[in-house]
């Protein structure tokens, strides 16, 4: 099997099935691309159509684009406010997650002490539990702390549920970094904290970026946690606001505004994907392949 195949034989086999002669793969790939992209494109196109066009001519593009749908969604339908709420909560949670997660991962990856393995597994075990199990007690924990429906409450809970994955991911990453630079810094009289912030964090940048992107996507897409812990409509996050809107808007029937809201909600993720698509696909599948 290791010996190279005689060229003649392989050509013969290849001519048996001429390159590109079998159209099935292209057809299959193209069909699924249509199935994937069509609903998304349709939503974007519908977001600039009038209600009459949406109701009576669902397929063709609009005669004239109605960008006022977007304006109405952003202001009248509160998508702008939900967007801002999401930014505040996700931004705060992301900072907190990255700080606490990287510190914990570093301490667990680079220091030997009693209980290290136990602590690590305490964090990582949470990855296997369904959030539904924690939901009821979590509601009362947050309520008792007086944090129900507040930004700090959501930020703390988002961070708490993102830290285990961050520790898991960065623990492996810090483990691969060279030890010599850190040791040299310690010999030069650097404190442990300074070694972490000045030496290790900059070295770990690729890992921090990767886990930061995943955390952003995961936190931006949260629904269950805000649904339970964030009952105040003024503080709804984007997913929550859009879901509420799609139910109530059905009666007020501002279809154009609703499609516009949907499109606005998809944009940040699309932007992140376009900017980091290689990282995202490689990183998200890395855990499941070698």
């Amino acid at each position, binding site marked *: 099997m290791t010996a190279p*195949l005689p060229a003649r034989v392989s050509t013969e086999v290849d001519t048996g099935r001429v390159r590109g002669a079998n159209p099935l793969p292209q057809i299959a790939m193209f069909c699924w691309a249509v199935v994937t992209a069509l609903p998304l494109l349709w939503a974007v196109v519908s977001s600039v159509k009038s209600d009459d066009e949406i109701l009576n001519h669902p397929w063709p593009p609009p005669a004239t684009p109605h960008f006022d749908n977007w304006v109405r969604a952003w202001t009248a339908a509160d998508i702008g406010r939900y967007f801002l709420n999401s930014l505040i909560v996700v931004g705060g949670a992301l900072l907190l997650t990255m700080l606490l997660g990287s510190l914990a991962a570093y301490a667990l990856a680079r220091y030997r002490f009693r209980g290290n393995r136990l602590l690590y597994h305490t964090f990582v075990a949470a990855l*296997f539990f369904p959030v*539904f199990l924690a939901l009821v007690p979590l509601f009362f924990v947050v309520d008792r702390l007086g944090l129900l429906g507040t930004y700090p409450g959501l930020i703390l809970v988002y961070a708490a549920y993102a830290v285990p994955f*961050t520790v898991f991911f960065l623990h492996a990453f810090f483990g691969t970094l060279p030890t010599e630079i850190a040791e040299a810094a310690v010999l030069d009289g650097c404190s*442990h904290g300074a070694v972490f912030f000045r030496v290790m964090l900059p070295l770990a940048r690729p890992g921090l970026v990767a886990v930061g992107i995943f955390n952003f996507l995961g936190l931006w897409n949260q*629904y*269950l946690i805000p649904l339970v812990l964030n009952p105040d409509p003024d503080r709804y996050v984007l997913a929550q606001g859009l879901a509420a809107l799609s139910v109530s808007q059905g009666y007020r029937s501002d279809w154009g505004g609703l499609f516009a809201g949907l499109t606005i909600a998809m944009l940040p993720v699309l932007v992140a994907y376009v900017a980091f698509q290689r990282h995202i696909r490689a990183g998200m599948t890395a855990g499941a392949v070698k």
Partner: protein
Amino acid sequence: MGHGRWRFLFAALVPALVLHVVFVLSPYAQAFYLSLTDWTGVAGQAHFVGVDNYARLGVDPLFLDAVRNNAIMLLVVPAATIGLGLFLASMLHRGGRGLRGGSAYQIVYFFPQLLSLVIVAVLWGFVYNPNTGLLNSGLRAIGLGALAHSWLAEPRFALAAVMAVLVWSSVGFYVVLFRAAIDGIPGELFEAARLDGAGGWSSFRHVTLPLVRENVQVAFVYLGIAALDGFAVVQVMTVGPGGPDGATEVVGLSLYRTAFSYGKFGYASAMGVALFFATLTLAILALRTGRRERPATRGGQA
């Protein structure tokens, strides 16, 4: 240095640990205790009722609907997603010859995976709309108007419509995953299969499938966990939600409603524990024969 070391370790670990214990570990632990009580949310009013809640679960018709639907989803969603994912990944690979435009396809396929399931659900709510939706108006446009249905309002279609959305949103991830796994198979194996006269199907069966088995197992765990959930899609998209007539009820929705609409927190916790053991059983069964065990990478998505 020893002193500074402990101070640093303390400062590095304690904040994360406090957050973890307060908001993650303690709720998980409390859930098991609450499931044995009749707690309705009034402090001091919880009575220990033993396994009563679990006994009630066994005769609660709506919960049994939910279990049945989650079981169907558990059988159909992973099978359909993995089947489609493997098929498309093999088409992309074509025994090592690759496919023109292959990477562009992967970029498109992957995008729905990144969207919140809520956004996916709102989108598909529009697609399934009986009068103005993409699906029915498309069917009418090509002369198949007779096939148009109220997809989410007819009991015989509603669950299938929900499952189709779950499959739609995740196939892209598995195409990329399986493509990476198939790329890891030595090209000589495909060459050898071709020399032996194996066609596409038989080289898929005898070369690809056995060598990506572990990835399929991992995929089954991820997808199985997603199929035991289904909450966001059902809650946003279906009538009721959970309808019509329990046709799309799922355990997560029953739990959410029992707790936060009816205030039966003890009973809801019992549902959570049941879901936990279902998840655990699934993961153990699927990974038992596998050599590696890794946690899900979609951690933040909770």
